[in-house]
């Protein structure tokens, strides 16, 4: 088997191995189902309750994507603002860090007071959790412009706006795309948290109600669906990233993790 194929199969093999371990653990220690269900039961539930799970999953996906899109728009605007002006950076950065440190769970009740139970708090929680990495990455891309390049441009009479459009924004693209895959997974976390606390649809609600009724297999089935959606979205954005910014991984003076 080629190394590449093996590399691609590795996550699947690991997953199957863990599931097997889990299955046998449950059998050997005869763990009751309302504590930890066997994976085989979870898969069975996934199939038998496909209808309701799919209904809630669709809702969660929509909520997450709407929150994510808002986060991208706001994140880019904030990032450009903070990254292109020293004053804005000094004024806003500490506030942003402070806001990012607040556990968003604590804000859900506030959102409920403002917007009522439903989709709005979930969208906003997804947004609040995911805009930060976008804003920070865009700001970093703009703020780390090589001083010599800036001198070349300024000596030509380039305005701040010229510099941002011609160099700053293209330069921050790799940072931006790297942040999208982080942001989308955070958006899932946000929407599911809010659904758990303050909604009557969505995987979060499904999981919450199932656990209240001690239907553990359904709880795990719901969580598995969220994980699967997260992986799928991450893969999509990782693919977009590779496609859009191949120059960044080729040129040596550009090192980006992510």
């Amino acid at each position, binding site marked *: 088997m080629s190394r590449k194929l093996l590399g691609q199969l590795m996550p699947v093999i690991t997953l199957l191995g863990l599931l097997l371990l889990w299955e046998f653990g449950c059998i050997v220690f005869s763990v009751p189902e309302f504590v930890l269900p066997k994976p085989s039961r979870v898969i069975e539930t996934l199939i038998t309750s496909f209808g309701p799970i799919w209904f809630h999953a669709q809702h969660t996906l929509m909520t997450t994507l709407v929150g994510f899109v808002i986060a991208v728009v706001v994140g880019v605007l904030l990032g450009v603002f903070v990254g292109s002006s020293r004053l804005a950076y000094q004024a806003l950065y500490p506030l942003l860090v402070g806001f990012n440190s607040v556990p968003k769970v604590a804000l859900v009740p506030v959102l409920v007071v403002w917007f009522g139970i439903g989709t709005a708090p979930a969208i906003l929680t997804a947004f609040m959790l995911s805009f930060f990495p976008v804003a920070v990455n865009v700001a970093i891309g703009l703020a780390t412009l090589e001083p010599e390049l800036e001198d*070349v441009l300024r000596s030509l009479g380039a305005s701040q706006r010229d510099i941002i459009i011609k160099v700053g924004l293209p330069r921050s693209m790799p940072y931006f795309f790297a942040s999208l895959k982080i942001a989308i997974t955070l958006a899932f976390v946000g929407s599911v948290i809010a659904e758990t606390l303050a909604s009557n649809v969505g995987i979060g609600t499904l999981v919450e109600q199932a656990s209240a009724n001690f239907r553990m297999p359904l709880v795990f089935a719901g969580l598995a669906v969220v994980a699967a959606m997260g992986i799928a979205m991450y893969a999509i954005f990782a693919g977009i990233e590779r496609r859009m910014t191949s120059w960044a991984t080729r040129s040596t003076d550009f090192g980006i993790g992510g």
Partner: protein
Amino acid sequence: MSAAATPLVDIAGVRLTYGGIDGTLAVDQLNLTVAPGEFVAVVGPSGCGKSSLMKLVTGLLAPSAGSVSVAGQTVRGPVKIVGMAFQNASLLPWRTTLDNLMLPLEIVEPYRSRIGRERASFQQDARKLLASVGLAGFESKFPWQLSGGMQQRASLCRALIHQPSLLMLDEPFAALDAFTREELWDVLQGIWIQRGFTTILVTHDLREAVYLADTVHVMSARPGRIVASYKVQLPRPRTLESSFLPEFSHLVQKLREHIRTERGAADAAQVA
């Protein structure tokens, strides 16, 4: 190149302090004139204020005292008739070589307002310029597909594409190997002879200074000022053979001693 002609660059009694009144005094009592079309090299010990001099002339920094004028006008902001290149080629990795050359034209007037309609003819000029530095055939390559020397050639082209009357070079060849560097001396000399722009070259390489310049200015240790100026009388175009002439080595030797003295003076001042 007579001294009587009005200078293109005139630096008179300039002082530059970084960071407030009790900050670093980078240059002081700096006087320097550059005639139109002249090729000037500036050498001096590290940290003496050579890069600061470049920023003063291009209007990126304002002097704390004294005045800088370029083409008869006092410098108050970015001077648009200059092109700049540095040790780091700093090309944009997402643009091809040709598109990197177009960047200044997208910014400087009058090209800026004409580029929409005349892009094709501008691109033709850019291709010609690239060919004149030996980069024909590399127009659609990305910077990371070029060698260090090629990137530096492209960077030189980018500094010249908008036909500046003043070219400012800050150690442009410092990161290159000796062979590539000498090749680029000839490239630079070639375009300079052909186009006749004025050049200020900052360098640590004394052979480079003598090879290329009409006048070599030596700066003192910080705070920098000009302590000596030498005319290089060797005929143009200079070739590697010129660098074996006794006048050449003699001048290089003299410059070396000068800089050693300046460094020594700086060290003595530190000890005292």
